[in-house]
């Protein structure tokens, strides 16, 4: 009885019990998919989040909480509690300890993408991943009041070209009863893909934000509409911004400047170190992600228990089958291999299906994931994931030795005749 013949027998035996085999396969496939999914999402989430900001010494906003400030100012998740005054920003950003500063203003959106008002300093000083700067795929930064620059995802999803007009909406959700229709913006630049929330952002100048809201000072559209042209003639000096980023001349001064901003008597502000705030965010999420991983592992164990149950219960019915094999010259240790390879076969096929399902799911859910700031490319299935799959297959072989051993012992005890 050579190995190939044994394997063919295993296969035929499985196919004989087709329905239960499919169910077991399905359960393994789903649990492998779940395990891969949870592991990849948590790795990529951490990766995406940490890569979003680099080289910024302090993030400053209205007084709220450090994680909240990080989330709304850098990741565009959640909302600011309050704005901060322009004079506070000027006083702080002009201090001798400050090398550069980027003011930002949030609160508008366009077709589900957030609008951010800022200055040219953003394109000059903002860094992400390993100190990478923003690059333009096409076009240039804004210069006129109604110019806009969009990120790679916005351009891809909405298919905009240079020169196209965009109508922005007031608030985070874009519906046609709250749009600034009278003041369309012109696309002058598209940024290269960064893998960060920058891709999902529409950038305009601070003056552009002021112009948009010239007739919204009451909180709703004013009776006397101010046209786009008329707005240009008004004073568009911003009076407030939502947050700003600071780069200091000396890293040693970070704590001193941070403390001074937090204690600033004229306005309640919060200054955070992005590295620490990210660490805090991960502490919060860390518990949840570990729990998810443990659950995924338990789901996998559960499927294996199911698989073993199926094989072990079938063992009783197959005693005659095994006795026949013995009579044909099959040795007891070959019976062991027969049974052990069954669970291995299930595991291999289940893993392959699980991986396929996982890859399909990545492709299908790209846009949903990006809405959460997650950038999961197909390449995220790499050597680490393969190690997981290998571990699953290895475990199945170990567990498969249980029915294998039982069959081995039974075949020894039974001999050629079965005592049922």
């Amino acid at each position, binding site marked *: 009885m050579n190995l190939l013949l044994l394997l063919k027998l295993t296969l035929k035996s499985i196919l004989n019990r087709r329905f239960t085999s499919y169910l077991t396969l399905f359960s393994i496939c789903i649990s492998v998919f779940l395990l891969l999914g949870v592991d990849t999402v948590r790795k990529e989430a951490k990766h995406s989040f940490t890569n979003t900001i680099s080289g910024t010494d302090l993030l400053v906003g209205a007084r709220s909480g450090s994680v909240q400030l990080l989330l709304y100012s850098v990741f565009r998740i959640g909302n600011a509690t309050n704005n901060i005054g322009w004079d506070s920003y000027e006083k702080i950003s002009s201090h*001798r300890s400050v090398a550069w500063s980027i003011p930002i203003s949030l609160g508008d959106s366009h077709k589900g993408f957030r609008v951010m008002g800022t200055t040219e300093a953003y394109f000059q000083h903002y860094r992400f991943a390993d100190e990478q700067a923003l690059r333009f795929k096409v076009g240039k930064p804004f210069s006129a009041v109604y110019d806009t620059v969009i990120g790679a995802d916005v351009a891809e999803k909405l298919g905009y070209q240079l020169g196209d007009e965009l109508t922005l909406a007031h608030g985070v959700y874009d519906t046609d009863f709250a749009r600034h229709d009278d003041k369309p913006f012109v696309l002058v630049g598209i940024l290269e893909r960064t893998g960060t929330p920058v891709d999902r952002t529409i950038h305009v100048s601070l003056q552009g934000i002021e112009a948009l809201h010239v007739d919204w000072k009451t909180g709703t559209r004013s009776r006397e509409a101010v046209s786009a042209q008329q707005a240009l003639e008004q004073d568009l000096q911003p009076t407030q911004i939502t947050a700003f980023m600071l780069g200091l001349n*000396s890293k040693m001064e970070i704590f001193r400047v941070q403390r001074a901003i937090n204690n600033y008597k004229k306005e309640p502000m919060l200054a955070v170190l992005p*590295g620490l705030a990210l660490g805090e965010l991960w502490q919060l999420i860390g518990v949840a992600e570990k729990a998810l991983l443990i659950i995924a592992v338990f789901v996998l164990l559960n499927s294996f228990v199911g698989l073993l149950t199926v094989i072990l219960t079938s063992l009783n019915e197959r005693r005659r089958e095994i006795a026949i094999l013995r009579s044909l010259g099959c040795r007891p240790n070959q019976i062991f291999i027969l049974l052990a390879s069954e669970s291995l076969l299930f595991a291999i096929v289940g893993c392959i299906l699980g991986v396929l399902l996982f890859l399909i799911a990545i492709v299908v859910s790209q846009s949903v994931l990006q809405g959460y700031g997650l950038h999961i490319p197909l390449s995220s299935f790499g050597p680490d994931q393969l190690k997981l799959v290998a571990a699953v297959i290895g475990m199945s072989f170990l567990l498969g030795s249980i029915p294998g051993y039982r069959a081995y012992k039974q075949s020894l005890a039974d001999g050629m005749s079965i005592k049922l």
Partner: protein
Amino acid sequence: MNTPRILLILMLVISPLAHSDKYKEVSWDDLMPKGWIPVVPDEPEFFEGETYDGRFETLPKIEMAPIVKSLNKQKIKLPGYMIPIKFNASSVSEFLLVPYMGACVHTPPPPENQIVYVSLKKPMVTQDLWAPVWVSGIMKAQVSMTKFATAGYHMTEAATEIYDY
């Protein structure tokens, strides 16, 4: 006793002394010059009284806390907490080392001679940010700001170990 034997004994005796690759363990107190009394910083003055007219040059210089020059170019080992400055998704390559973490706001932040800017030889995979570490490296005590470096304590070629306590 013949000459080779004497030489061998001499070598055996001298070799442990020649092994001077040890890092000297220092404490945070050693980073402050003896006799220097830390000053309660006057924080409200940091931004008050300044008006916006470009880069501000005439504000009286805030005295930076003095450093111990004899620590320059020394191989030292110091425990502390990391505040990541240069990091990416998997590792930290540069951080500020401070004596305590998450302190209450009753006290001001540590003075400049109680902060060390550490540059790791090999980026460290971030595990627990809040775990204290031993940092060993070559200390640079820079008295004043040059074109290439800011003043204060810098540690280069550093490596970290978990601090057991």
